[in-house]
């Protein structure tokens, strides 16, 4: 292909009208508490895996809400459950991780 000296970049805009939230909607049934996440970041701050590989339950929940694939991030979780212990909204994040795994199984 001819090189015109520039490339086209894909827009990074999140378009909520074209967001496929099916996975999130299903998880809202098994884990209804996830709707109450307030993005405080306590889970990510306490996560044992976070400092080494960027695991973040806050980002997982946000990614689900934005229709993104969370599997790459989940592979980094050690299921230690610390995030669940600190969540001020009482969200069982560990259970959520298991529900996500079950869904993709």
């Amino acid at each position, binding site marked *: 292909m001819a090189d015109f000296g520039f490339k086209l970049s894909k827009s*990074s*805009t*999140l*378009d*909520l*009208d074209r967001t496929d939230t099916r996975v999130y909607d299903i998880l*809202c049934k098994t884990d*209804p*508490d996830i*709707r*109450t*996440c*307030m*993005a405080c970041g306590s889970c990510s701050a306490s996560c044992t895996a976070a400092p080494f590989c960027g695991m973040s339950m*806050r980002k997982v929940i*946000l990614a689900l*809400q*934005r229709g993104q694939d969370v599997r790459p991030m989940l592979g980094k979780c050690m299921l230690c459950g610390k995030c669940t212990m600190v969540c001020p*909204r009482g969200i069982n994040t560990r259970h959520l991780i298991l529900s996500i795994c079950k869904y993709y199984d």
Partner: protein
Amino acid sequence: MKNIVIIGGGVAGMEAARQLLALGYTPIIVEKANALGGHVASWYRLFPDMTPASEIISRLKKEIAPANVFTGTKVISISREKGDYSLTLDNGVSILAGAVLFATGFKVFDASKKEEYGYGVYDRVITNRDLEAWLSGGEDKRISAPKAIGFVHCVGSRDLKAGNSQCSKVCCTTAIKQAIEMKEKFPKAEIYCFYMDLRLFGKKYEDFYINAQRDFGVHFIRGRVSEVGETIDGRLQVKAEDTLSGKPLKVQVDNLVLMSGMVCNQSVSELVRQARLDIDDDGFLRSRNNIFDILESNRPGIFYAGACTGTKTVPETLAEARAAALEIHNYLQNG
């Protein structure tokens, strides 16, 4: 017994009158609108318990029946006369009062000043006030079976360019209340609240938020709406940054509700000048001290209650009005 004049017949003025009646006075209320009630009279239900606003207003009206009420009337002059104040009303009446209570309230920010949100330009952009009127049973052709609704927080508040650096305090909770109400009416509609911080300071307000998330599935998006445009089919395209993802975000909605803030009521500036009262940096009436003497002005015998000194909720306004009645009573007893 000396006269007490209350300027403004919103919930602040009415509650102060109710307490003064209980203390044995017959206060005079001067209200410029044709009916008592102020802003609350045009709200539908009040957060966080969804109390019908009309219940509060009709109860207050009933209980202050023995007071002297002038509606559709303005105070045109006020001056100090020995220890008292001489007031002239636009109906020709003049009153000598031992104490005057300013209960002149606030104004709702004019949303059309934030041009980027398109109020008055795009048909389906409405305000919190318009929505309260519609919820109360008013007609509004702009609202018809919406599939998606957006709420824009902080319109005209926390905005130096709009001339108002303060947080208007009640609008986060109002947005949540109205989001729930819209979800009750249109259960299938997606609802997005665009916020910078959620300020839910009052008793039960945080529960109200959890309720909106868990039971109504309202989406909260952290980011201030930057601009709004209209699509070919008359819907609204909303742009903001999803600051939690760090990415630009767009969504189409059928109605966009602007949460216009509470700003100072500049229509009292002439009275303020005549009575030589101080104005605060935010344009509201300046209390003698913001902790101990919120209800006192810089002039003896002139008192404040409610939203004339800053944004207040209804229960805060009522509490201030009761306290102001007592301050006036003490002043007249000792003064």
